[in-house]
């Protein structure tokens, strides 16, 4: 594994203002600043419209912020790059390729020798538990398996930061729980920096060393938590973690924050 000590992700005073066709403008993000050390696991939570997806797209390089900047490895982010891998909710796999080809896509694009790709893909198939499915077509896999492929495809590139945009949002509850375990295992096993956006408070608690609660209008960081549950989840069963009294207390606390925000939005609309 590459030395990642200097690859801290800096988000400096990032603002994003969208101008609508009718002339009004929306402040999706205002003065968001954040520093993420290598190997940290950050989950971002917030009501819809709080700009969390916009923030992720800016970090990924798909959007240029109207103000501020994102810096990784001492370089300003100006566009997408293989140093920042992305896992989408669903539908981002290439159906015309086998599982194996999907996972090796990034390596092939960079002209890595075939034998090396094969080795790397085999290794990743093993890690995500799909070693028997390498030659299957994407549409033959279940939703959970497809997300395993997406994770493996992202890891194959050995990115410094992995950005996950509600990666488990479309899965059923049981599969989701299994996949949460996998994400934790991958995080610990690879030591990658991970930013994970989610709608689910439980998921944010379980999959965040740090948890960012964002608030809408304008999109901003409302509160940050440091949580022990991700570390606990690496060692123990996730269901054991959920029984923990601190977990329940934190869940209630964050839920009430989110509910308050939601009510505020509803009230403002009326």
């Amino acid at each position, binding site marked *: 594994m590459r030395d990642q000590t200097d690859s801290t992700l800096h988000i400096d005073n990032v603002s994003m203002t969208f101008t609508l066709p009718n002339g009004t403008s929306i402040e999706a993000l205002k003065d968001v600043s954040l520093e993420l050390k290598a190997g940290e696991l950050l989950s971002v939570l917030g009501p819809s419209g709080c700009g969390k997806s916009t923030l992720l797209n800016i970090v*990924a390089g*798909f959007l240029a912020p109207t103000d501020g900047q994102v810096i990784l490895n001492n370089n300003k982010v100006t*566009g*997408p*790059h*293989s140093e*920042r*891998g*992305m896992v*989408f*909710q*669903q*539908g*981002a*796999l*290439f*159906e*015309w390729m086998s599982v194996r080809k999907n996972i090796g*896509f*990034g390596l092939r*694009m*960079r002209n890595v020798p075939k034998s090396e790709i094969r080795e790397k893909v085999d290794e990743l198939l093993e890690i995500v538990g799909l070693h028997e499915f390498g030659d299957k*077509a*994407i*549409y033959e896999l279940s939703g959970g398996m497809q997300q395993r492929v997406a994770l493996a*495809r*992202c890891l194959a*590139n050995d990115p410094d930061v992995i950005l996950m945009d509600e990666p488990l949002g479309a899965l059923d509850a049981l599969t989701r729980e299994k996949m949460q375990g996998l994400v934790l295992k991958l995080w610990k096993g690879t030591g990658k920096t991970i930013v994970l956006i989610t709608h689910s408070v439980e998921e944010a608690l379980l999959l965040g060393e740090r948890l960012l609660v964002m608030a809408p209008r304008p999109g901003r960081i409302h509160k940050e938590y440091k949580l022990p549950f991700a570390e606990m989840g690496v060692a123990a069963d996730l269901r054991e973690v959920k029984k923990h009294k601190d977990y329940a207390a934190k869940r209630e606390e964050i839920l009430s924050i989110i509910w308050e925000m939601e009510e505020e939005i509803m009230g403002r609309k009326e």
Partner: protein
Amino acid sequence: MLVLTIYIAIFVSAYFIYAFAYGNKAPKRGFNANKTITFGDESAVTSNRTASVISVITIFTIWGAFTGSSLVPLHVPGPFTGDTSFTYTATNADNQQDDAVVYVRVGLVGEEIEDPVAPDVANPGFAIDDVATIRAWRSGLIKVRKNDFGSDAEGYVVSAIDGQPIVPNQTVSVVDGQIRMTGKGTLSFEPNQGWQMEAIWLPAPEAIVKRLIEISRDGYQNVTLSENIGWSLFRVVTGFLLGSLVGIPLGYAMGLNDWFRGWFDPIVEFMRPIPPLALIPLVIIWFGIWEQGKISLLFLAALWIMTISSRAGVSGVSISKVHAAYSLGASKRQVLLHVIVPNSLPEIFTGARVAMGVCWGTVVAAELVAAEKGAGKMIIAASKFQQTDIVIMGIILIGVIGFSIDILMRYAERKLVPWKGKSD
């Protein structure tokens, strides 16, 4: 009307017989077996095989029954053939009346018919017996008074047929047909036509098979059948390939670039709804009636369809796939080659199927207008000689080929874009 009534009667009775025979035990298998709600559940409606088989048999039976086919045991009554006779009554200038018999022999078209021989019975009086030959499905004038004595005199008229009075422009029925008196007083005999169709309207199925064998062996008008069909297919494939060659890159350009889209949108949107057949006159004026004209026409027919489908294919690529590819380190060229092109293939295949169908229809129409060789040329030439069997054979062949093209395209689609319709 009669045919339609019989057809509906068969449809209804077959349904009731089937329902009676199977009742509620009508075999449903698989998922549908235990469904209690089937009315309104589209997935529970499957094509009934028995109905399909009966449907096809019915069409051929009716076809055979109404054309006197030897393949079908039951026939509707055919036209009258053989010998018949009727009696006419003539009234001469002195108001005297006399009867005479007309012996008529009716034969099929194309048969040798000898005049019937009047029986050697004495028939005194001024009206003399007559003989005539008439073709089935036709009528014939019989100048019965020509050999009568005193028929030149003013006031000599034929006044009755088989005892039924007749005046000019009136029609009376006799045993085996109808007799009409023309305005000038001549009799016109039309033997009963029966319910069968004459071969020039609709030949029997076996006649068409026979013709197919004959034409595929000897050709038609010095052009073999495979040449005719080969030329049509050649034009379709060439026109389609040229159209795709220009249309697909154009569609990609329109899907990927503002300027291209703005420039070509008005052209494509205007040309798309114009049926290719409407372009035939202009294409003939510009390119003439030979190969260049036809291939240009098919090129135009395929071009817009392929442009629009490949544009739709490009527009249909989900943004997360493109984002994913860029995040994985792909360059613009690699995104185009490895993401956009494969992602658009299903749409392009759908377009290609439509385009091939349209081209096949257009080539036949274009050949009807002008061609030396081709499937359309063959049937239009045959129709000018009333060779209905060749026309029907040609239509069936055109249908079979069009259907085969579609099957072939679907097969290619399944092999080449197996992920079609399976992504989310």
